[in-house]
């Protein structure tokens, strides 16, 4: 059965700190890994990763995938209170299915 595990489940830091969120996976016929940010409602898309070693960046957020070790990290530098959210990792398996298997999420709290 496909599985995605995120760690830590919860993280509390101070504004300005740098955080690293982890996502490991076991999935049949891996195609891609996605990161979403979920505040009070709908998950919003952050990154899609398909190739190992290529870092995706968007402002203070960056992410990288290691297909050999089956994990990804999401890095946030110079954190702000607006970064407080649940960060979800999901993987896409066999072609044609487009089925996302989500991890349980990491709840990040940024204190001023």
């Amino acid at each position: 059965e496909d599985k995605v595990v995120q760690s830590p489940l919860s993280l509390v830091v101070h504004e300005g700190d740098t955080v690293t969120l982890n996502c490991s996976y076991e999935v049949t016929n891996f195609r891609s890994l996605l990161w979403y940010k979920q505040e009070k409602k709908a998950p919003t898309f952050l990154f899609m990763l398909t190739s190992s070693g290529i870092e995706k960046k968007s402002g203070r957020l960056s992410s990288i995938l290691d297909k050999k070790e089956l994990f990804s990290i999401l890095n946030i530098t110079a954190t702000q209170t607006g970064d407080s959210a649940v960060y979800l990792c999901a993987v896409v398996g066999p072609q044609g299915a487009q089925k996302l298997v989500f991890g349980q999420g990491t709840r990040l709290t940024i204190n001023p």
Partner: protein
Amino acid sequence: EAGVAQSPRYKIIEKRQSVAFWCNPISGHATLYWYQQILGQGPKLLIQFQNNGVVDDSQLPKDRFSAERLKGVDSTLKIQPAKLEDSAVYLCASSPGTSGSPRETQYFGPGTRLLVL
């Protein structure tokens, strides 16, 4: 571009009652998904439609849950009868194409928060 619309936003019912949720995907999106997100967990796929056909409903509890997308646009998800453990947020998402390319992204609606008492 308008996002994925869902209604209602909140629903409180008693166990054994019925409930229905509605989703209107982004215009032109062929694929529609219903997810169940229990508090403290990630979303779990219930059913995936491609146009008006079901692609995957392997995790849908078919004894009580049903979903349809008759004209390939809007979709409804029904629970009959509801149980306490159905309390969750029900998320609808859509994605543009049918090719199965890994570069397709799913766009989520705001969700319907269901509380079963």
